[in-house]
């Protein structure tokens, strides 16, 4: 059963899919977006419930599809990572429903990794190419922050002023100053004042569990209302099985299962894939045909390769004074890029950000991020010492693209529509482990300088919820999947617009760069409209 042909079909409604749909709709294109999840009602967010913390371990709002197992989720088989370490959300807004809203930008040097440091690859675009789209994305999402940071190029005034640092942020800030290290208040995709029809953050915290206020920029509340007003069509509970091709080798449309389980075809002149760094290669690899036997857009063999996930460590400091860290925005209030740019004397290449984190409530404190509060006679004494007196420094390191870190199709696991599940293989590199060990030592120094009376560090390395690199951008079709406009080298009316297209992943959270790339790709698609079939 075929649906009416659209100009563009976008697969996925998250950070990238929403931005590309809005921009193309503004420009005048007829856009249909297919989303396998549904709208989430703010009243259903667990952040409204006192037991919200249990979603960290189990429940319908868990960060991991391997724990949630909703019909709209797909299992992710893992090797080298624990199944629960894969985080994503399938709903209108995608993982922006769950995210922390941290909104840093790449540095100019992040686009020239090979030239500067002799590893990985250069991007085919520069920071300056993306800068106007960073600005546009900031305005559309709504950002709080402050320009003037000496670790980053000058940027336009932030749409709203910084959110409060609170006792925790100011305490750690004094530690940074004592060490004479760089730090700055974070750009957050959370508005500190009413903005663009949305209400300001009321500093309640629990941001990862959904923001009923609407201050956190999930794309169901930012891009989607505007895109729908411009005529975009959003089909929910629509799971795409494969991208179909025509006799000329162009993308013809997509086959998808509607909410009744019926197989339908959405025809389009242009296909945009925005399914995240795991879902996108999964779909491309599942789109095999006589013309593309190894999957679509995969003549380079790079689809699914070079998976990056941002390795991390966390070090906690316990302070005498109350930090009251469980209210106020959960995400990092401030950050340091003192160790961001490469310094070969450190024994590793590339660098990392130090992120200052608030915490959740008493349950997760007792469970412990680094170690649980001890049980037995000493339990109450230690709990009283740690809660709410603990701050966490997270080390977010850049991992380098490596072919053996990859996404493939699993031979057995399938989703509820019997589409093969992705199989992720990932191992931390020696460079990564050295980088994180360096960062953990610096975090300890920082916390001690800030006055911590106890340091908690279990040495465990775990990933952030960032899925990148599996359909990489590059100039050479033999070694990359998309060109500088996110256009597939092999299929001219196919665009891959999400974290998959990252050539390298930098040492910062990726979402502002995903959004900027999406807005730029939309302009590229529109400029090529005369070539649409």
């Amino acid at each position, binding site marked *: 059963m075929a649906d009416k042909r659209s100009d563009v079909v976008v697969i996925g409604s998250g950070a990238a899919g929403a931005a590309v749909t809005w921009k193309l709709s503004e420009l005048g294109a007829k856009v249909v977006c297919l989303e396998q999840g549904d709208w989430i009602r703010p009243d*259903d967010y*667990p*952040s*409204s*419930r*006192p*037991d919200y*913390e*249990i*979603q960290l*371990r189990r*429940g*319908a709002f868990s960060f991991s599809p391997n724990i949630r197992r909703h019909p709209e989720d797909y299992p992710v088989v893992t090797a080298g990572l624990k199944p629960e370490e894969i985080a994503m959300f399938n709903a209108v807004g995608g993982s922006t429903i769950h995210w922390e809203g941290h909104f840093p930008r790449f540095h*100019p*040097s992040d686009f020239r990794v090979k*030239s*500067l440091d002799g590893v990985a690859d250069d991007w085919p675009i520069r*920071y300056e190419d993306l800068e106007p789209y960073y600005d546009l994305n900031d305005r559309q999402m709504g950002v709080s922050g*402050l320009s003037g940071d*000496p*670790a*980053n190029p000058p940027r336009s005034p932030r749409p709203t*002023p910084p*959110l*409060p*640092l*609170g006792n925790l942020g*100011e305490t750690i800030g004094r530690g*940074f*100053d004592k060490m004479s290290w*760089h*730090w*700055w*208040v974070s750009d957050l995709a959370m508005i500190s004042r009413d903005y663009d029809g949305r209400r300001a953050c*009321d*500093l*309640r915290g629990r941001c990862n569990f959904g923001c*009923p206020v609407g201050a956190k920029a999930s794309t169901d509340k930012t891009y989607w209302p505007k895109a729908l007003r411009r005529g975009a069509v959003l089909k929910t509970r629509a799971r795409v099985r494969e991208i179909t091709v025509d006799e000329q080798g162009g993308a013809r449309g997509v086959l998808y299962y509607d909410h009744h389980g019926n197989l339908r075809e959405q025809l389009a002149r242009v296909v945009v894939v925005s399914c995240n760094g795991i879902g996108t290669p999964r779909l491309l690899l599942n789109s095999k045909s006589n013309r593309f036997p190894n999957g679509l857009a995969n003549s380079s063999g790079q689809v699914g390769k070079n998976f990056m996930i941002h390795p991390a460590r966390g070090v906690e400091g316990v302070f005498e004074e*109350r930090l009251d860290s469980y*209210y106020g925005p959960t995400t990092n209030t401030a950050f340091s890029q*003192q160790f*961001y*740019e490469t310094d070969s004397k450190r024994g590793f290449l590339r660098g990392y950000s130090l992120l200052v984190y608030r915490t959740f*409530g*008493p*349950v997760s*404190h*007792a*469970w412990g991020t680094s170690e*649980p*509060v001890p*049980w*037995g*006679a000493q*339990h*109450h*004494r230690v709990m*009283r010492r740690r*809660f*709410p007196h603990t701050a966490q420094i997270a080390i977010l390191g850049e991992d380098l693209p490596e072919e053996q870190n990859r996404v493939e199709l699993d031979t057995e696991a399938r989703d509820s529509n019997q589409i093969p599940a992705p199989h992720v293989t990932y191992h931390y590199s020696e460079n990564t482990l050295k980088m994180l060990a360096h960062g953990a030592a610096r975090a300890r120094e920082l916390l001690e300088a800030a006055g911590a009376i106890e340091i908690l560090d279990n040495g465990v390395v775990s990933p952030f919820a960032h899925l990148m690199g599996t359909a990489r951008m590059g100039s050479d079709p033999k070694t990359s999947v998309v060109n500088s406009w996110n256009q597939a080298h092999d299929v001219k009316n196919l665009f891959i617009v999400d974290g998959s297209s990252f050539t390298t992943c930098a040492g910062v959270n990726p979402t502002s760069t995903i959004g900027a790339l999406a807005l730029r790709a939309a302009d590229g698609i529109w400029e090529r409209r005369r070539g649409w079939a």
Partner: protein
Amino acid sequence: MTTASMGVVGVDSLIVNGSIGVKKRIFPTFDSNVLQLLRAAMDEIIPSNDGMPAASQVGGMEYLERIAGQDLQLRHEFDEGLATLDRVSRAQFEKGFVQLSPEQRVRALSELETTAAPGFFGVLRDYVYEAYYLQPQVQKLIGYEFYPFRKPVPLIKPFDETVLGKVRKMPKLYREVW
């Protein structure tokens, strides 16, 4: 929901709402021996001291019965794990865990934690912590308040730009590229 009312409900016979609209099935809960073991164990994990109540004094048992009643796999894990604790007690002290002195119970739980069943011990400890710290009376005692979305939160001092005075004087840290 009480133990008794759950006990008479047949397997798979009742559906209740779980978190954010997900339906969860109610299973019959623990038998009386397991309940005694669980109560004794949770009150050693979180005892009454330092001005704080023990876990069972604030509804910890009822909470865990409800959770285990919604998750058959978890209930079996508790059944087996607590049976292991009882075996450890009998091997160490020739008495069941419930009959042990507080000091002996701590030693038996330590054996469970380090040797006999460390995986289960972690599960038990974390569920007891959850059962305890979700209780409003405990939250009040530790100075925590959950702020619902219609209740004002305490004021946080607005951002003060002067805190960045030192870092503003730094030279630029990013690399120029061509």
